């Protein structure tokens, strides 16, 4: 069905690969994840192949993205956080390129599935928890103890814990919901154009409005695709800041 706005999120399996009772089948989602990684790696290898003192265009894009993430990381997590730079940069690049590849017609958007974004955010929060305990030991638990009078603590500690547990959830929901809603909206409005144009001249005239909206929404979607990758990276930095300085 060309007009089904949900159809684009369908997972189709290319081949199955049964290993120990678990199916590691290769799906279109896996294909686009591999394509995302290949695009990022290929681009960065190309950009750094000719390390000119005066960067050419490709190199300058790579340098700008480095600067961009390094600046964000330094501002939110402090310069100690720079040891997480490879992690944050990989996440940012993966989400950004995954979102951008999804903007091609007929391409699959990996970040429109909550399992993908949830896995990414669980990775982030695991790094925060493991590194937090490694670096601070038990003092990491001070994160859950706000500086308030002691009689308020029984109420506030559960709230702090829930607020911490909510983080990976809100991180994954935000990315997934934005991509899903954006792509559905785009598809619905583009579908209006096709449907209306079947009704002769009046339909053609009426189709101008959804057509203009589709153009505007496409631009908005590109903005959202970048923005969500940026937000994901920023929040990762903020959570890493907690791992570095609990108690605050």
């Amino acid at each position: 069905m060309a007009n089904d706005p949900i159809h684009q999120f369908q997972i189709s399996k290319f081949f199955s690969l049964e290993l120990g009772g678990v199916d590691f089948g290769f799906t279109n989602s896996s294909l686009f994840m591999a394509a995302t990684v290949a695009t990022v790696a290929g681009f960065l290898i190309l950009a750094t192949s000719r390390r000119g003192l005066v960067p050419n265009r490709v190199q300058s894009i790579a340098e700008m993205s480095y600067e961009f993430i390094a600046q964000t990381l330094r501002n939110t997590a402090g310069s100690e956080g720079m040891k997480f730079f490879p992690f944050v940069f990989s996440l940012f690049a993966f989400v950004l390129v995954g979102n951008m590849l999804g903007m091609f017609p007929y391409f699959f958007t990996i970040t429109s599935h909550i399992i993908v974004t949830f896995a990414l955010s669980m990775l982030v929060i695991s790094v925060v928890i493991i590194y937090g305990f490694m670096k601070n030991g038990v003092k990491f638990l001070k994160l859950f103890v706000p500086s308030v009078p002691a009689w308020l603590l029984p109420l506030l500690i559960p709230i702090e814990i829930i607020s911490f547990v909510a983080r990976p959830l809100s991180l994954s929901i935000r990315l997934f919901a934005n991509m899903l809603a954006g792509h559905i909206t785009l598809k619905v409005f583009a579908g209006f154009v096709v449907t209306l144009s079947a009704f002769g001249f009046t339909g053609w005239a009426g189709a101008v409005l959804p057509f203009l909206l589709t153009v505007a929404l496409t631009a908005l979607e590109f903005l959202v695709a970048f923005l969500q990758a940026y937000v994901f990276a920023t929040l990762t930095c903020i959570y890493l800041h907690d791992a570095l300085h609990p108690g605050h």
Partner: protein
Amino acid sequence: MSDDEKQTGRVAGDTGANEAELAERFRRLEEKLASGGHGAGDGLGSGERSKPSAIGQAFRLSSELVAGVAVGFGMGWGIDKTFDTTPWGMIVFLFLGFAAGVLNLLRATGQAGGGAATPNSGDEG
């Protein structure tokens, strides 16, 4: 000048350094950046960045509250299931979850201190 820049580039690109050495290098680089007067404003102009981050904030807030309530719901449901306390766990934890959602919301906008989820507070405190 040209030597300096080459060195800076190599410092940024090297990955196989141990942590102490890395920290030392960053400290030196920071000094160099501070004295050289370039760095912060380069690359992306500040005006270019302030706009996306404002919209980014708006996108961010929408899911904070929902996630808090959802986690409260999940925890309440789990506690009811394990300790057979229906419906008290759900009632208590839904309220706690709502409070946590509001707390996250206020932290995201920088209106509540305490925890570290305040992006604008930086390193101080």
